């Protein structure tokens, strides 16, 4: 996926000279995950800016650049480092179009490598999506595959709204096909990525491949799981999900973030509201615990895995 993102960024920068990349270490180093590798050499130091180490400064100046007609794509180095920029993102970036009553657009993309599974140290494996999903004016997306990463980053950059682009860092290295000819699905669409009849499971980012693994294992035991890739976290595209729940009658939501007041909570509430008479069981959440992300040696306990997902599927089926 990292390579797909690099290609997507290069394509967007080639298509529009107003696209500029900003972040710490994104120049000669190519970013700590190498997503911007080679781009400064290709596009120059005024298109790929190695910034001072100041997250609020990076986002705040990106806002100013957007006001000037640029399309900044900001890299936040790690999920846990986004909070110094929280104020500029939530009180400024999210609200400025509304405060201008539409007279000014802020096409800023904020790339956030997020989530666990890489055994990193404190502040380097978090899932802060819900903080931003709660804020009006932002769009949030998260690709699960290289193909989606390639297309979605370009769509995020051409969007006139601010987009927070959550990159599941454990998926940077696994390979996958990118169809350069077929254009991607619309940025806001959720998609059924595996058909099934007994239980619907939904997730985003790194969780999607785990849900597919769980579905594969369940199939061997005779349970048919339908897997939905959320793709967009704000707004959430409920139509495919509701269609699926109408058919299966059961829903399990999986995410790495803590479960309370989360994307999964929102989905559970909304699906209960809109598909109550189709449900055979309560919507169940499989998530990280409501603790800080633990030391790496405990992440295997903290993060949802195939066993916990299948356990929830069994509980849903038991109703």
């Amino acid at each position, binding site marked *: 996926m990292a390579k797909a993102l690099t290609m997507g960024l290069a394509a967007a920068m080639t298509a529009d000279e107003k696209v500029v990349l900003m972040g710490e270490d994104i120049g000669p180093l190519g970013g700590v995950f190498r997503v911007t590798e080679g781009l400064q050499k290709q596009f120059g130091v005024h298109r790929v800016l190695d910034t001072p180490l100041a997250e*609020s*400064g990076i986002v705040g100046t990106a806002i*100013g*650049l957007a*006001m000037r007609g640029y399309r900044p794509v900001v890299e936040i180095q790690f999920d846990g480092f986004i909070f110094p920029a929280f104020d500029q993102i939530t*009180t400024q970036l999210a609200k*400025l179009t509304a405060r201008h*009553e539409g*007279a000014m657009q802020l096409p800023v993309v904020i790339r956030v490598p997020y989530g666990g599974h890489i055994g990193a140290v404190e502040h380097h494996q978090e899932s802060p999506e819900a903080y931003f999903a709660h804020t009006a004016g932002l769009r949030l997306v998260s690709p699960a595959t290289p193909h989606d990463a390639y297309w979605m980053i370009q769509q995020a950059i051409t969007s006139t709204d601010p987009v927070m682009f959550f990159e599941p860092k454990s998926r940077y290295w696994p390979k996958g096909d990118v169809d350069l000819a077929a254009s991607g699905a619309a940025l806001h669409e959720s998609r059924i990525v595996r058909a099934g009849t007994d239980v619907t499971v939904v997730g985003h980012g790194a969780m999607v491949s785990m849900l597919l693994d769980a579905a594969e294992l369940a199939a061997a035991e005779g349970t048919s799981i339908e897997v939905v890739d959320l793709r967009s976290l704000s707004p959430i595209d409920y139509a495919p999900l509701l269609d699926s729940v109408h058919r299966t009658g059961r829903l399990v939501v999986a995410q790495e973030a803590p479960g309370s007041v989360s994307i999964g909570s929102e989905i559970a509430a909304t699906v209960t509201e809109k598909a109550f008479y189709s449900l055979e069981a309560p919507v169940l959440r499989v998530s990280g615990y409501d603790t800080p992300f633990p030391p790496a040696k405990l992440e295997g306990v903290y993060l949802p895995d195939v066993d916990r997902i299948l356990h929830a599927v069994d509980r849903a089926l038991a109703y």
Partner: protein
Amino acid sequence: MSYTPETLQLLAPDGTRVVSDATEAYLPYVDALTEQQLREFYRTMRVIRRFDIEAGNLQRQGQLALWIPSLGQEAAQVGSGFAARAHDHIFPAYREHAVGHIRGLDVVQIIKMLRGLTHGGWNPAETGNFHLYTLVIGSQSLHATGYAMGVRFDGLVGTGDPEKDTAVLVYFGDGATSQGDVNEAFVFAQSYQTPQVFFLQNNHWAISVPVRVQSRTPLFHRPRGFGIPSQQIDGNDVLMSYAATAASLDAARAGEGPQFIEALTYRMGAHTTSDDPTKYRDDDELHYWQERDPIARFEAYLRGLGESEAFFTEVAEEAEQFAAEARARTLALEPPSAESMFAHVYSEPHPVMDAQRQALADFEASFEGGA
């Protein structure tokens, strides 16, 4: 609480010109001012002060949720505001009513914010590149710096063509200098050598906290640690404010990087109509600054130049009329439509906005013809 040996001044509090080696470089800017421009400085200060008082009255009468007085800071604002060129961009904090007025902002737009009708609502492209007020302290310093980075990337710095070379002027207060964003703005401005002027209005109080709590060193010394040239001026001296800002903007446009001005001034009223300065500051201090009033000083200067009584009478009448019109227009303002809440949250279609707009409309419609 007062001036230092390094404070640049062209007009003494009694309105006489001050001559010193330190200000010699600024004299060409002042000498080039026409009589008409001098009158305009005075007119703007008087009109905005009168408007400011009227807006405060409107708040006291329950017509505004809040008012943010600029009384006492007219010279800092009018001098600097007139120093900017038409194509320069200005990022205010939230007290720069005079600057906005100079750039063509209808002051009723400010009233609309404080009456609870908008959260901004003006388009900088239609207000002389005067951007929105920012209530979060210091945030705009980064927006201004990013904007100035864009100007530089656009190649509109140091071309030598006055129609092209562009600068950014950003306002903030003494309290804001404690904010991380302002300090990060200094870092970015210096890193990218932005064409911008940081204009600090040191009005001595961040609500009830005196400037000495923000900084134990003179604030204009601080940007020098970032490598940004800085100066301290008498902010109640409109000529000095004009000349220093014009010179700094010229340097920024010429490609000399960011510049910094600390204008020593004084907020004579409250921070906003929500606080009561009698609880936190003494009368001696207020009296000290009242004797250095920016308008009285400039009026004395103009009288010394032989300005007619008729002019001052005319400006006083204009100020009264301006305030009366602002009052009448304020009382005639209509609240926004309910559905406007959803209109510009996103610039592209958004299903949640559509659904909630419809739900509200349906709910409202359910009462029609009802009990």
